[in-house]
């Protein structure tokens, strides 16, 4: 059996906000490449804070956090930027640019990485085919439904073939059917080898889409299922 590569590792991780509030404390967790991890817990449990630390949006106050071999606590700007380029992020409010076309939204990560237009178009078309929205390439996001907008956000997250996709409550604003479709896409990506870490409180989705469940409560890790798919 081949040994899986560790993609995220943390030890005694603690996060204290400048206000003094402790958001996370004493977290020990290892996430291996190719896993599908659900971060669950009540509102304010620390799920979003933990996700933000995975792309360098927040720095740990103490403890260790290695993301894709980068020590987030001490990493310089260039290292954090490199982590972000290898990470896809999906937000609950999808954060699409409404003044730009679907193509421009999805192409943005590649543009940041210096791709030219000739290479961009086929790549964007391919990922939009994957999320089954290739017919909306030149539409504006406001013309799309909530589910379609979230699929565009997934397309944007996966377009640069990142090693990890972080999804913060991606199904939070969607009805059950649409949420299931969005999760299907994330599962499909995971089967292709991408590590997916998803913060959610829609626990009923876990029955149809199993994965490793990491439960947080008041900033502490209270359960880790280590479930295998």
């Amino acid at each position, binding site marked *: 059996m081949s040994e899986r590569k560790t993609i995220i590792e943390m030890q005694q991780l603690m996060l204290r906000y400048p206000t003094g509030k402790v958001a996370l404390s004493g977290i020990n967790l290892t996430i291996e490449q190719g896993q599908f991890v659900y971060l669950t817990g009540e509102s304010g449990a620390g799920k979003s804070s933990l996700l933000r630390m995975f792309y360098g949006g927040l720095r740990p106050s103490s403890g260790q956090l290695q993301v894709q071999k980068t020590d987030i606590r001490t990493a310089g700007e260039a290292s954090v930027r490199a982590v972000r380029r290898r990470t896809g992020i999906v937000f609950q409010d999808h954060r699409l640019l409404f003044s730009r076309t679907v193509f*421009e939204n999805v192409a943005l990560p590649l543009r940041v*990485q210096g791709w030219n237009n000739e290479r961009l178009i086929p790549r964007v078309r391919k990922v939009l085919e994957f999320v089954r929205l290739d017919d909306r390439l*030149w539409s504006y996001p406001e013309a799309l439904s909530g589910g379609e907008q979230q699929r565009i956000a997934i397309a944007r997250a996966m377009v640069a073939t990142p090693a990890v996709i972080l999804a913060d409550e991606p199904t939070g604003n969607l009805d059950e059917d649409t949420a299931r479709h969005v999760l299907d896409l994330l599962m499909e990506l995971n089967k292709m080898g991408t590590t997916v870490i998803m913060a959610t409180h829609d626990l009923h989705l876990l029955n149809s889409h199993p994965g490793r469940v990491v439960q947080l409560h008041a900033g502490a890790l209270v359960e880790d299922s280590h479930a295998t798919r």
Partner: protein
Amino acid sequence: MQPDNVRIHLPGGMNMPPFGVHQYLALIIVAVSLWALGSGWMGLQATGQWVGTWQQQMVLHVYLPQEHKKELKALQEGLQAVDGVGQVEYMAREDSAKWMRQWLGNSALDVQTLSERLPETLLVRLLDDEAGQFVADDIREVAERRHALINEDEVALLGMREVLDKVEVLAWFVSTLLALAMALIVSNTLRMILLARANEVHLMRLLGAKEWFVRMPFVLEGVTLGAGAGLLAWLLLWPWVWGSSEWLEGSMVELHVGILFLPLLIGGALLGCVGALIATARLVSPDSVVES
């Protein structure tokens, strides 16, 4: 296939965003300010030329009343001995009267009667324009010693260069203030645009964009706005030249608007760049990379 009516316009890097109402408004305001500056400098150029031309032909008139006529020779010799004086000519009273009659429009004036009342006149040509004011003081001293008078209006005009130097210093001061104001106008405009595009900037940073990549479009926009305003200001100077061409020709002034082209264009671009740098100096996103 990409539809014909869709133009790909990706943000960041060397891609400048399209101009909107705010940018055009700022361009007009900056252009008007630059035009005012250019007009001021052009006016200074014209005055400088006019004064220069006038000083090259400069003669000071020294008048000796009839009752002291016997001192004329001594006065002429005294004036000739003054440092800075080139030539001292006697102007016959009849010639003065003729000139005066011509000046009065050939009126039926009795030249003989008039000439008898005129003082003796000496024309003193100066050698060095720069030292004119000091030479005038010496000429006045010699003239007063011989009961003669110097034309003080002509002496006052000699001081024009000194005044012009002061005006030039003032023009630099006003130019600096206006430049600062224009940089702030550009900066405010870009700041508004930046706030409107805050989501885009934030997203690019989340995707790992480098800082130059995020800021460059705004700097390019500032430079284009400033350079465009400079060009427009330069073009707007031409109506001045055309409108005053007759007067300028009469005053022997030839304006060189061409020399203001590069200062306005480069100055405008520089101002736009400074404005953009001010606007983007504190461009903070919630998840900006912060060194620990």
